[in-house]
């Protein structure tokens, strides 16, 4: 089936390509994992499939939530929200969009075997009111329901049934899912062909319900893993838009004719987790000096983030004291304050804490996950050393790094957090600050536990009053800020590059939304 599909696609490729079409050639660091939007939580796969499928509500180019397949919604009861669906929407295959599609899709995404269920926690039922109205029933009040739903795409129920794909994709089940290779959504683009790791071709959906802001007829997406090759392809004119573009190549790209960098602060905040357990994984002193707040303060004093920004991040990062970006709910300016760079103060604090000679610990970093992660860590290690610490730098591929983080086999470790898809500080609170209890605290550093913060987390989870919720959220994040539970580093810059003819909005979440893109030939 897929084979013959590909065959036709490949053979007809040169014929159907419109002569003077607005074709956008787009390259990213890797390919989508598959076309099923419920099968993986990978944010790139998610935004790619967003071109094909749509959620009930979506983020616009400025990351505000706006109606998509639902036109409006009402909170009927604290845990029951009614969604009124858009009339006259059809799938690419011609099927009409209705309540059954929403029921099947939400149930499928929240299935215990679906990897996506963590993105829609607490769903108990989806009930049909009429053909174009559904009630979403949650375990309890869910203030962030709409944020969750931006990430849950709607598939056609009949199409899923016909292809035996109603159950979620499950790698352990041992058979291939139909939806992995085929797509049938309501989105602005249709899938024309797909060759994994080589070329995905999307064409504009003429029957889209929304008025297109884009002028594209065709998108040719090529994954290019090697950053240098990606830049070369842009410079040679083979590609119109690359994402990401290496920061260090910015000058070269700006200097080249007809291409430019697209740079903005991103949502992803980089921070260093701190082991506050009873002992260090790899220390040379009794106990764990990192439990002492003065030591953690000394660390912040020791690191000259402005210099790291200027030299390693080429001035593009935003140095932060906060664990979330300003765009994320819960942010206040107060939590963005940093202890100033002051190596003498760092040494004094260290001595005060009883470690005038410093102490050894591991500084664990990935070397293939965040922008310039390895270099940042090397620079930090140098600065910590100069302030009297004895960091042992360990840089590893992400798989090994995050496994160690999982096992708490790290002392001071790098982690980035973008709060996606919620765009809410609660994400940081629940995953990285609350005491581990099985559902919360997945990444909370060993030994960190603040009862007041835990209390607030429980309350925020069900607080429907947005004002109160935000106040509590900010309070909780401020507590973490004062504890220096995590050592904030910076907001990672977004770094794309495009031909001058390409206009594309660059939202802080680093996701490419080509339904807003224009090519001006």
């Amino acid at each position, binding site marked *: 089936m897929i084979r013959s599909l590909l065959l036709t696609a490949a053979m007809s490729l040169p014929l159907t390509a419109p002569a003077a079409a607005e074709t956008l050639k787009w390259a990213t660091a890797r390919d989508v994992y598959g076309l099923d939007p419920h099968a993986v939580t990978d944010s790139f796969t998610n935004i790619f499939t967003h071109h094909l499928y749509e959620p009930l509500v979506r983020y616009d180019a400025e990351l505000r939530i706006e109606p998509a397949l639902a036109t409006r919604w009402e909170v009927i009861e604290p845990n029951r929200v009614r969604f009124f669906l858009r009339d006259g929407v059809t799938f690419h295959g011609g099927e009409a969009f209705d309540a059954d599609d929403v029921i099947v899709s939400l149930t499928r995404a929240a299935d215990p075997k679906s990897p996506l269920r963590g993105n829609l926690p607490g769903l108990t039922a989806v009930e049909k009111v009429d053909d174009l109205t559904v009630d979403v029933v949650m375990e309890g009040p869910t203030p962030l329901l709409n944020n969750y739903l931006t990430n849950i795409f709607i598939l056609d129920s009949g199409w899923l049934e016909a292809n035996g794909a109603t159950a979620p994709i499950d790698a352990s089940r041992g058979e291939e899912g139909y939806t992995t290779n085929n797509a049938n959504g309501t989105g602005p683009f249709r899938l024309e062909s797909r060759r994994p790791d080589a070329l995905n071709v999307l064409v504009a959906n003429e029957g889209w319900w929304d008025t297109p802001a884009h002028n594209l007829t065709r998108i040719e997406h090529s994954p290019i893993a090697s950053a240098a090759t990606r830049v070369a392809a842009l410079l040679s004119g083979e590609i119109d838009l690359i994402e990401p573009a290496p920061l260090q190549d910015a*000058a070269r790209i700006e200097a080249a004719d007809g291409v430019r960098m697209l740079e903005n602060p991103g949502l992803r905040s980089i921070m260093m987790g701190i082991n506050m357990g009873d002992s260090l994984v790899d220390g040379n002193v009794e106990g764990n000096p990192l439990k002492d707040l003065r030591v953690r303060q000394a660390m912040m004093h020791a690191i000259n983030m402005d210099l790291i920004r200027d030299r390693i991040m080429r001035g593009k990062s935003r140095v932060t004291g906060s664990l979330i970006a300003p765009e994320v709910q819960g942010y206040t300016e107060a939590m963005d304050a940093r202890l100033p760079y002051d190596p003498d103060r760092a040494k004094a604090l260290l001595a005060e804490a009883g470690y005038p000679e410093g102490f050894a610990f591991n500084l664990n970093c990935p070397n293939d996950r965040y922008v310039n992660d390895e270099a940042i860590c090397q620079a930090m*290690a140098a600065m910590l050393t100069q302030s009297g610490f004895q960091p042992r730098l360990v840089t590893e591929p992400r798989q090994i790094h995050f496994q160690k983080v999982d096992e708490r086999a790290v002392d001071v470790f790098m982690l980035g957090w973008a709060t996606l898809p919620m765009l809410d500080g609660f994400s940081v609170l629940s995953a990285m600050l609350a005491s581990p209890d099985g559902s919360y605290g997945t990444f909370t550093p060993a030994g960190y536990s603040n009862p007041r913060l835990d209390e607030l987390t429980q309350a925020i989870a069900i607080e429907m009053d947005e004002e109160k919720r935000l106040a509590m959220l900010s309070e909780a994040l401020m507590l973490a800020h004062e504890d220096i539970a995590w050592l904030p580093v910076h907001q990672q810059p977004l770094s794309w590059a495009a031909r001058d003819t390409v206009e594309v909005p660059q939202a802080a979440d680093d996701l490419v939304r080509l339904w807003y893109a224009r090519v001006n030939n």
Partner: protein
Amino acid sequence: MATPTPASAPPRPAPAGLIARALSGDVAWSFRHSWSARISALVLLILFAAAILAPWLANQNPYDIGELSLFDSELPPAWAEGGDARYWLGTDTLARDVYSSILYGLRLSLIVGFASVALAAVVGISLGLLGGFVGGIVDAAIMRFADVLLSFPTILVALLVNGIMRGALPPAQHQQAAIWVLILAIGLTNWVQYARTVRSSTMVERNKEYVQAARINGVSRAGIMVSHILPNVLGPVLVIATINLGMAVLTEATLSFLGVGMPATQPSLGTLIRIGNEYLFSGIWWVVIFPSVVLVALVLAVNLLGDWLRDALNPKLR
């Protein structure tokens, strides 16, 4: 025409002969008359000396992160505009002195190269002699094992050794272990070539009259292998070894590209190039050009010297 070689004498000189020939000046003469050999040797001498004397020649210990000051990052070479006399070949993004990094990196690359070649040669020659001489099931086992190993090319074996070492060692030792991981990985994949060469020569020699005669005369198997067969394969082994030395240095660079080479905090020459490679477009040319030039010089010199050695040691060529 060739002088008659009676069948009862070894076809090639015994070890004493080999050494004697080297001392008697045949090799030395050939050396004096080969431009490429002399230049290569000079280059290698300089590079070896630089590697050995790195701590004294370098302006900075690039492995001591405490010495790095980010204020001095990405300085161009001293003669270029904006250059700093302290860093005559410039600095990289982390303010490491490129000149010092090259010296230390060269040292690491050479250690990895020599150690892995030595490991491969010792393992390969031993197994080759054993297989070729004993034959039968021992030989079959060794050769099948070689097949298994060959179906795991160096890159993959390195991933394996790397993974196992990481699992077996406490995290504190990972960084120090990196160099041993590389030596083991490269050494253990390259012995097959030696083994095959030695094995086939051994099989040929085994049936020659002089070996049979030695056997009858009560010389032990080990004795025969060491005194009669080994000298005959020394030439090819030496040639393989020199070529492999260059290869090992390059393999180490490639492994670094795949993320299992030396850590960025202790860059070898290959790691420096891998890091510099990411800056090819950025205009910071000195971080990739200088290490590359040194690596090319090293590999080239080793190979040219290997070529010359092969010719010089091969009596048939003269």
